[in-house]
């Protein structure tokens, strides 16, 4: 087995354990709170008989550990319960709304990497000179401003005062959603050859993705900068300079790649922050995603739906970390080639 694969399997096993832990945590929090879930689920007009029937049907009279067992069994059957908010199965809601959030977060993530890394690299290369000061100031402001404030500011500026971008939604009124394949409108539109729908979807993504990405861009730039400054102090950069490697080659290659390893690990966390900040941004831009659904179900004490949303987001976060681990292990030859060293 290759070391990368072994590492991944190891991480996967840990992730599954963690996910089980998360499910226990969230399940118990949901059950110890005041209020009878059956009564909440049935709404104000329910009779005592209806409530008793539901308590029985959902095993609410069993000990909590047994209830957790039932919960896991249903979970494995893809049954997350029913949402009070949409009156549909939670699993169906999650499947409907998650792609929108994921699409938004992935675009924001791409912006974070494409803009944050170069900005941080630039700051490190020109450490303590003006590009550094500008980059640092921009990134610290980006980090210190909550995503919802960016949302409000961007919407006000670029959709209201200068109506360059759409105010809200995933597609303009009158443009139909592309046939469902992945749930990502941009990808589905391309797969179906609907170029104008693709651009319309991208056009709608720009403002919310930017609002979501800004603090990530700042964070990435800061991390990249400090990681690269650390790298610049290492002897192999001294060697590169002594051998006359061009400064921008060092900055782009010889200092950049080693710095990426610690940066990437933390970028995984930033991605998680984005999943959370999507809750704020989707609200501002009326983005029909899982986060907006999450806010609504939380406001309504829709227990099954809350548990479902948190589990999905935790799973997403763990998958992100797995992907990050994979990328790091590919970039970092020490992990990739661990076996060869053992033999040598």
């Amino acid at each position, binding site marked *: 087995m290759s070391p990368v694969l072994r590492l991944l399997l190891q991480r996967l096993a*840990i*992730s599954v*354990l*963690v*996910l089980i*832990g*998360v499910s226990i*945590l*969230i399940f118990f*929090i*949901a059950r110890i*709170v005041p209020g009878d879930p059956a009564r909440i689920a049935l709404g104000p007009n329910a009779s005592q008989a209806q409530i008793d029937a539901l308590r029985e049907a959902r095993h609410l009279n069993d000990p909590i550990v047994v209830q957790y067992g039932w919960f896991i069994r249903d979970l494995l059957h893809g049954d997350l319960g029913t949402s009070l908010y949409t009156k549909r199965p939670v699993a169906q809601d999650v499947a409907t709304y998650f792609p929108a959030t994921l699409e938004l977060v992935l675009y924001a993530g791409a912006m974070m990497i494409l803009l944050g890394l170069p900005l941080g690299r630039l700051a490190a290369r020109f450490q303590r000179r003006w590009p550094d000061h500008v980059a*640092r100031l921009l990134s*610290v*402001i980006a*980090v*210190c*401003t*909550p*995503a*919802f*404030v960016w949302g*409000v*500011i961007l*919407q*006000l500026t670029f959709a*209201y*005062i200068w109506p360059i971008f759409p105010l809200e939604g995933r597609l303009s009124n009158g443009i139909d959603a592309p046939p469902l394949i992945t749930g990502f409108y941009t990808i589905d539109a391309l797969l179906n050859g609907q170029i104008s729908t693709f651009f319309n979807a991208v056009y709608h993504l720009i403002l919310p993705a930017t609002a979501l990405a800004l603090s990530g861009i700042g964070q990435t730039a800061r991390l990249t900068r400090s990681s690269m400054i650390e790298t610049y102090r290492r002897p192999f950069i001294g060697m590169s300079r002594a051998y006359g490697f061009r400064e921008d080659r060092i900055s782009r290659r010889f200092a950049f790649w080693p710095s990426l390893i610690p940066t990437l690990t933390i970028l995984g966390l930033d991605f*998680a*922050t984005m*999943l*959370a*900040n999507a*809750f*704020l941004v989707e*609200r*501002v831009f009326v983005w029909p995603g899982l986060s907006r659904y*999450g*806010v609504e*179900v*939380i*406001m309504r*004490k829709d*227990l099954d739906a*809350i548990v479902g*949303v*948190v589990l999905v*987001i*935790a799973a997403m*976060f*763990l998958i992100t970390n797995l992907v990050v681990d994979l990328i790091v292990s590919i970039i970092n030859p020490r992990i990739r080639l661990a076996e060869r060293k053992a033999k040598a």
Partner: protein
Amino acid sequence: MSAKSSSVAWTEFRSNPISILGLILVVFCIALALFADVITPYPEHVGPIGDFTAINQAPSAAHWFGTDTIGRDLLTRIIYGFRLSLLMAVLVLSISMPVGVILGLLAGYLGGWVEFVLMRLTDIFLAIPPLVLAMAIMGFLPATLTNAMLAVTVMWWPWYTRLVYNVVRSEAREGYVLAAEVIGASSPHVMFREILPNCAPAVLTKLTLDIGFVVLMVSSLSFLGLGVQPPTPDLGSMVADGAKYMPDAWWLSIFPALAIMVLVLGFNLLGDGLREAFDAEV
């Protein structure tokens, strides 16, 4: 880790104008919060009492930041919002930090099953984005100030546990710890007297940065309507409530938004300055 003495750190800190700016902002915000009763032009507007004859007024000489939807002076409420944000941040951190630090010490120093259990628990907490976990907890509890703080506290300690754990793991191999163990010092002694002081720069730096981030988190919760309840002045809910009146009454959300920015920025710059000065890994 903490190779630099505090005087060297101070010299270094002082030489960085950005850090000084952070310090000034922090002192400014704290001063506003402390002396809110004296400074604010309309201290009676902190509560529900407004002036229904002066609703939604644009910024003017009488109301520098305008008035809100029930005629309260926005500047007054923002200054009290500083007080509340800072108070919440301090309370949240004064519980989550010690808990996290002690658990991190235990996990890192004792190892074995203690380490396994604590660190897996930490992983579980860290596997859910903090805001989502806090929101979920708030989803199950009534939205009150206490519960909001509780929710944030519950999700904050693991960060300190992990930080201290990592420091301890590297410090435990250091000579002075081995030396202390060789001469037969007790575990608590080694943990608290030998290792803890060496975690201090990292923990303090993180603490400073975290004040900003707790403010950010709490205001995000409030923005979603899950945190502080009216009429208590809170910056996040002011932004959310004001956003409904955009763009006509822009001041309602722009000023509180800027206030959050300034507050978080101050602690961030200060924290960054400390990090560089102490060379601390956070």
